[in-house]
């Protein structure tokens, strides 16, 4: 039942997003544009079915493979990456950062589940190991200068550490957050510009602050009920189809439309957390815990993207160049998120006769 609701929610968001992209493009999509949607939906279905019935453990039992994949993608990005419009892509305009996030979540979930001592608590040593591994990863991300990705990975890992235990897990989470403070407090270069514009977009109204101000103009002009689908002048906002899709919705569907959209997203995310809350009472097995951590991680990752994107667009947070999952334009992101949703769908199922 939960799975059905989750699937419906994800499909609504995906297809609604795709339809809205058609509206923004003003033309019917070409084959090249439909491909990511088709591939994504296919992989969503495949992941949901293939790993259901307890087979998720095959995925989660290989944390080091996932870590290797994440490092591999980042290394490829360092070596082959090309900049386009402020973002870094692999040849073919593929943005692997969503896949990196997915692998990080899979790695962390598998690792933390295996890191328990005999008395069932996380050991200090394992936390250190985790921090080290993720530190190497973070360093690679910093080399590629994708601070949005860094922030997302950081927050996601913190959430997963928090979810895993009260003891060292929580300490690790706090330490990770503390590590972020100096970066935010003393920004340099590109970051400094972003922070300055965040505080006062008028300081550079026709330069760095332009996108934010045009976004706010669209938002304010939409009002409570919006102007109506197709009636807004949405292309006045730069890069509206990916980063700033929220203000296009705000202009055309108003506060009401945005509230409904966010409510749908929240419902989908809360549904995704469900298997964890209906877990068995007895101390969970390693697989079960890994699956719960996976849910927590995926939800944290998607929620983080949502909050960072909408917060940035509303100027509540500095812009981080993060897109809205499932609704924004961007094939790789769509495919990655749909795969993640598929895995989530397969998560926490009944294991039939192989119950613990």
């Amino acid at each position: 039942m939960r799975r059905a609701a989750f699937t419906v929610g994800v499909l609504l968001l995906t297809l609604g997003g795709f339809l809205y992209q058609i509206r923004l493009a003003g033309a019917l999509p070409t084959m090249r544009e439909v491909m990511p949607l088709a591939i994504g939906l296919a992989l969503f279905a495949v992941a949901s079915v293939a790993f259901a019935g307890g087979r998720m453990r095959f995925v989660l039992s290989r944390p080091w493979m996932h870590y290797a994949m994440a490092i591999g993608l980042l290394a490829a990005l360092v070596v082959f990456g090309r900049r386009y419009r402020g973002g870094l892509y692999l040849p073919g305009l593929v943005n692997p950062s969503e896949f990196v996030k997915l692998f990080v979540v899979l790695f962390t979930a598998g690792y933390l589940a295996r890191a328990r001592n005999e008395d069932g608590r996380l050991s200090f040593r394992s936390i250190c190991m985790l921090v080290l591994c993720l530190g190497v990863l973070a360093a690679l991300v910093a080399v590629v200068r994708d601070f949005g990705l860094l922030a997302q990975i950081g927050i996601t890992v913190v959430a997963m550490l928090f979810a895993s235990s009260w003891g060292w897990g929580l300490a690790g989470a706090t330490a990770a957050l503390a590590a972020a403070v100096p970066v935010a407090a003393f920004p340099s270069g590109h970051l400094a510009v972003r922070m300055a514009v965040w505080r006062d977009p008028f300081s550079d109204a026709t330069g760095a602050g332009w996108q934010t101000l045009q976004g706010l103009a669209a938002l304010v002009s939409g009002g409570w009920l919006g102007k109506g689908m197709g009636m807004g002048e949405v292309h006045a906002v730069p890069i509206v189809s990916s980063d700033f899709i929220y203000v296009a919705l705000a202009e055309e569907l108003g506060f009401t439309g945005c509230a409904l959209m966010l409510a749908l997203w929240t419902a989908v995310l809360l549904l995704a957390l469900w298997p964890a809350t209906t877990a068995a009472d007895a101390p969970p097995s390693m697989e079960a815990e890994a699956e719960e951590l996976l849910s927590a991680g995926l939800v944290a990752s998607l929620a983080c993207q949502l909050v960072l994107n909408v917060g940035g667009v509303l100027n509540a947070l500095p812009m981080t160049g993060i897109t809205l999952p499932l609704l924004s334009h961007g094939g790789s992101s769509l495919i990655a998120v749909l795969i993640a949703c598929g895995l989530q769908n397969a998560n926490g199922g009944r294991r039939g006769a192989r119950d613990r």
Partner: protein
Amino acid sequence: MRARIAILAGVVTLATLGLLLVHARHLFTTGRDARFVGFLCRHDRRVPTDTRLAARFAARLTVRDALQKKAWELMKGRKGCVLAIEPATGRIRAMVSSPGPDPSTVRGLVGGIIGGASYFNRALEGLYPPGSTFKVFMAAAALSAGMEPIYDCPAAGYRAARATPPIRDAEAAAARRAGRVWRGFGRLGLGEALAHSSNVYFAQLGVGLGPERFESAVRAMRLRDPVMVLEEDGIGVAGAGGGVPDGLKAPELAPLGIGQGELLLTPLSVAMFTAAVANDGAAVRPTLSADAKPTLYARPFTMEAAQRVKRMMRAAVSSGTGRRCDIAGMDVCGKTGTAQTDSGADHSWFTCLAPMGRPRLVVTVLVEHGGFGADAALPIARAMLLEARKEGLLQ
């Protein structure tokens, strides 16, 4: 773990609610932020066409949706501007500067200004030679100073000083091109000269007016002063001051008399002196704010002078160069302008007011490098007047 997951769920929900709160807060506060208002008026072309956006401002704007949309349509693909102002109240009913900024190609993102789109408002900040539209100002200034001379206007033109080239009427050049012979206008009075837009006459009028009377007329109209059209909490949207040279000797006034030479005005200034003529010689401060009360800005002309110039402008439309703007049932009074530029084709101007009896609207159109005033700018003004009549603005 169940408890901790539940906490995560709670955090996610609270975050979403927080975002919605921020969204709602923007709807209340940002629309009223003075700096935001200023930014929108200068840079976001949606503002005047989007009355819903305008209505959210602390200052509601005077521009009318239908007129703005019409003006955008008419100016599509051209460079220039359209202004429509109510002479009695100063309310700006349409203000369009084309090409509008293409808001998705921004300096910061693409590193350059693309395709000639620029971010300044031509109506408020563009400085152009006014060409023959300035003759309206000259005529009103001369009449206010008690001058109404008759000058001889031969085909050979008028030479203000031996060293300067002669100023000729447009008909002379046209006749030469067509291989005809043109005898000149002969002796002209002010009214006919304005109707026919005779350069030879107005060059002489400029010289005849003299530096002192010219300077006092310019000061009376405050042509050099920037004009604030919207002011909210210290931010201002203003029209630029014109570039009118001072300290001129009489012969140097000849080209200024025909709106050329070192003279540069904004389209707003041209609209303002047209509005002063429409409003019996009193220039009301132009404003974008619906809440502002009409205030007197300047009193450049006497009432008699203004009314007479108005009638002369009527003649310009009924039988002069502005013929194509003569609309039945609407006594349009107007003046074409064809301003020579240093580079490229002439700028096309047309400034008009309607209806003559009790002028309700002044429309000023400039099409950069559009050629003759009657060719490019006039049809746009004509369409604007028709649209204004449909909107009931000419009642």
